[in-house]
């Protein structure tokens, strides 16, 4: 984003939100160093420098690393150690991480270092800041880290860019880091003691990836609520399943919130069924005196409509939990050792361990996979003529049999739902001892975060198809009586929607709508639709 009005986030090691991380990665926000954070960093560095002068033995400063930590490094070689650490650990492989995420990784690392307990020089922080603001994104292969001593492999690749080695993306071009820095008027840094380790030994990669997964998951939740409200209106769902008093007696916070969102979405509708009116309608169908008669009116809706608040409750609560975890991690000091001058301490520990993010990403996968289960069933109800309460089979607007409507597209939802159930298997329990058994319990948090991103991507396929099916169904009935908020959303989406009549390649509709739903602001915040 090349403009003077670009918002600036002042990084201080506190207050950075997951939305900030995503925005910085996408170039929608720039970064500055908070003056108080700079003061803290100077104090931390000065404290470390004195400890080195006093010949204190400090891990990764004048010792080797990992299981070789008992090998003490001569003072004259302590800077070489930092460079060797980076180059030897830049050993990832696979597809490169998207430049927007790679830039976010750099930003998260900068924020954690700016907290002021890592003992790095201000020059390093300033170079990272300038790289981010110049739009430089390190080339980081996606595979390699076990997420225990942090994202060592990913962050080694990130660190290569800082020292002018390896490659980076600049203006979508993959070029050498050295050339990119030169083009941006920057110079690579020769790292001082501790700095290589401080860059690499942390959770910035998994945290930044998690922030992107979370951002997508938040929009998925909002679209899922809209799809739920559309479904209630398409099928004339019964109001009491969303009654506030029902949820007040089972007061899971997410359940109360989901029910309220759906009520707000369909408020003013002429499409839903009111329990109060059901009794007379049903009794009116019985014209003969028989022991039993079967009504054509649903006394209760299927679970995929009626139980939406209960099913999405833990999904909403998980998103809140994951948000707290990601933001705590992003604003933490997570390298080793930690230098706290005000306590006169250099503390050796394991803040680099990514178990919290790994757990959170596993939970996110379960949550979004559950959201997909619901979406896939609602979609099936729309398409199956035995379930769709009078809609055309497969929502075909033309000659049934000759044209196929949504029949082929449904496979996308079915297969993606199945794939997501597989991806929902937890990664955080997959510890494998490594590093000569020094890292004998690892988090696999980086793998978990990457997996969550993939699962969120698949989920977008499913809910995109569902919303297309909703719009198609509403082209047959009930669009004229939608609620205030659902009506507003329907009006906006209808500008880009065309009834699917087999005249277009379906994929093209999916691509356009997936972009509309998820690469724009439409579903970032539903409250905009609730205003009177």
């Amino acid at each position, binding site marked *: 984003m*090349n403009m003077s009005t670009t918002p600036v986030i002042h990084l201080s090691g506190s207050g950075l939100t997951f939305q900030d991380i995503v925005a910085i990665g996408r170039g*929608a*926000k720039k970064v500055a160093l908070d003056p108080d954070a700079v003061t803290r960093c100077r104090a931390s560095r000065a404290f470390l420098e004195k400890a080195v002068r006093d010949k204190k033995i400090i891990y990764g400063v004048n010792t080797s690393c990992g299981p070789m930590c008992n090998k003490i490094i001569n003072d004259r070689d302590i800077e070489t150690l930092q460079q060797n650490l980076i180059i030897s650990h830049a050993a990832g492989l696979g597809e490169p991480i998207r430049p927007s995420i790679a830039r976010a990784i750099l930003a998260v690392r900068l924020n954690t270092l700016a907290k002021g307990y890592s003992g790095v020089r201000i020059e390093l922080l300033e170079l990272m800041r300038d790289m981010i603001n110049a739009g430089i994104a390190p080339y980081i292969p996606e595979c390699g880290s076990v997420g225990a001593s942090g994202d060592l492999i990913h962050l080694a690749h990130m660190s290569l860019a800082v020292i002018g080695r390896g490659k980076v993306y600049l203006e979508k071009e993959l070029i050498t880091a050295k050339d990119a820095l030169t083009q941006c008027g920057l110079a690579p840094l020769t790292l001082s003691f501790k700095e290589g380790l401080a860059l690499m030994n942390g959770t910035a990669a998994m945290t930044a990836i998690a922030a992107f997964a979370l951002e997508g998951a938040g929009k998925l939740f909002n679209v899922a609520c809209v799809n739920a409200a559309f479904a209630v209106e398409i099928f004339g769902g019964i109001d009491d399943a969303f009654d506030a008093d029902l949820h007040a007696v089972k007061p899971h916070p997410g359940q109360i919130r989901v029910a309220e969102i759906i009520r707000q979405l369909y408020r003013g509708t002429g499409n839903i069924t009111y329990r109060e009116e059901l009794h007379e309608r049903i009794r009116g169908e019985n014209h003969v005196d028989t022991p039993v008669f079967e009504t054509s009116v649903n006394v209760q809706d299927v679970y995929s409509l009626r139980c939406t608040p209960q099913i999405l409750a833990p999904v909403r609560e998980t998103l809140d939990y994951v948000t707290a975890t990601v933001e705590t991690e992003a604003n933490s000091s997570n390298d080793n050792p930690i230098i706290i001058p005000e306590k006169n301490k250099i503390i050796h520990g394991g803040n680099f361990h990514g178990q919290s993010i790994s757990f959170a990403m596993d939970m996110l996968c379960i949550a979004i996979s559950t959201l997909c289960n619901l979406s896939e069933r609602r979609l099936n109800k729309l398409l199956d003529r035995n379930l769709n309460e009078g809609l055309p089979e497969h929502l075909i607007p033309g000659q049934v049999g000759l044209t196929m409507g949504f029949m082929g597209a449904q496979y996308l939802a079915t297969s993606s739902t199945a794939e997501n159930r597989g991806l929902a298997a937890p990664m955080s329990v997959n510890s494998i001892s490594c590093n000569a058994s020094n890292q004998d319990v690892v988090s696999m948090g980086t793998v978990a975060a990457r997996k969550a991103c993939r699962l969120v991507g698949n989920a977008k396929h499913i809910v995109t198809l569902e919303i297309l099916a909703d719009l198609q169904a509403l082209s047959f009935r009930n669009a004229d009586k939608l609620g205030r908020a659902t009506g507003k959303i329907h009006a*906006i989406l209808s500008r880009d929607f065309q009834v699917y009549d087999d005249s277009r390649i379906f994929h093209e509709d999916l691509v356009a709508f997936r972009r509309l739903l998820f690469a*724009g602001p439409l579903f970032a915040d539903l409250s905009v639709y609730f*205003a009177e």
Partner: protein
Amino acid sequence: MEPLERELLELICTTCNLTEVDQTTVGRNDPLIGPDSPLGTDSLDALEIAVTVQQKYGVRMDSENTSRTVLQSLITLAAYINGNRAGSN
């Protein structure tokens, strides 16, 4: 007013169906959204403008904060489009 700014004003009026707005009275520094805007637009209009701009000019408008910043005025919106039309990676 620059040509792009004029084009954007027309686009906004069309998108938000602002048939009663006299475009000649709208300044390039005037707020585009909110009670102080001569357009009389609200947050839902802002959303629609953001979507339309994203689609027409291929610039990403996904953050609410960014949209608010960008939609300060015709000048800021045009500058944002000019600075990002190539698209960020």
